[in-house]
């Protein structure tokens, strides 16, 4: 639980260290950190969206499925986005508004996986007087397999 305990939940704390829209360079990789996905983290995420399928909780059942063991729901990347990025990452800027997302799924994430993220801003633009950034992300497991990849469109606070 060391990872969770060290997570800074006050998003104002490092606000002055985060890149503004002007500073974000499309194409430049974001700094990321490996994250070990735990069964506790999966179960907490499941509770927050009402996921109750035994594929995520019941090891005996999960062994009988095509996946051969417990997996996380595909949308676990919602957690991974914050778990795999440092406190000064611009995705945590207070006032960041989510405008859209598109994600593709390959192999499932599993409890115990050490997950890495390759991420960058891909594009930025101004539309209807709002500052947009498109970010591009790929999550990998410890075997180098792609778990999922996706893009997000956010409106920046400044």
């Amino acid at each position, binding site marked *: 639980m060391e990872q969770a305990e060290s*997570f800074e*939940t*006050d*998003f*104002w704390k490092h606000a002055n260290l985060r890149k503004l829209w002007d500073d974000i360079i499309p194409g430049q990789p974001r700094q990321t950190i490996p994250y070990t996905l735990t069964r506790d*983290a999966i179960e*907490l*995420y499941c*509770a*927050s*969206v*009402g*996921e109750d*399928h035994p*594929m995520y909780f019941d090891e005996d059942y999960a062994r009988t499925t*095509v996946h051969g063991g417990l997996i996380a*729901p*595909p*949308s676990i990347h*919602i*957690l991974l*986005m*914050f*778990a795999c990025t440092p406190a000064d990452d611009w995705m*945590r800027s*207070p*006032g*960041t*508004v*989510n*405008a*859209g*997302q*598109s*994600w*593709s*799924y390959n192999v499932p994430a599993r409890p115990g996986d050490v997950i890495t993220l390759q991420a960058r801003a891909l594009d930025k633009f101004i539309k209807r*007087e*709002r500052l947009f950034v498109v970010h591009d992300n790929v999550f990998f497991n410890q075997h180098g397999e792609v778990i999922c990849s996706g893009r997000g469109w956010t*409106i920046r*606070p400044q």
Partner: protein
Amino acid sequence: MATRFEQLSAGDAIEGPEFAVTRESIRLFCDASLDYNPLHLDDDYMKGNFGKTNFGGIIMHGMNNFGLISRMITDWAYPAGAIHRRLETRWVKPVRPGDTIQPKGIIRSKHTTARSRWVLLD
């Protein structure tokens, strides 16, 4: 509703369970997703304007919606031995504490490719 590929038709509908949004459910999503943006926590902050937008109070995470839609798809697909491969979303309106939301999908088309079979939903 049928979940055999051959039996599915454009226009068939699926839906997930209703989800009651509360300040507590939003807080739980903060802890589960590690997204502690004050948009979801701080009423005083949310009295301010965001460009031309004023939300008037805290709002639910957009990705909470995403998670509910994802759950609808997997709960429907798993019993048929199918896999959830892609989800694309756009956010149109904010969701607030006190709202009840429910994901719904409509089959748009089916496609067979060289190695797989796809069901596309809106």
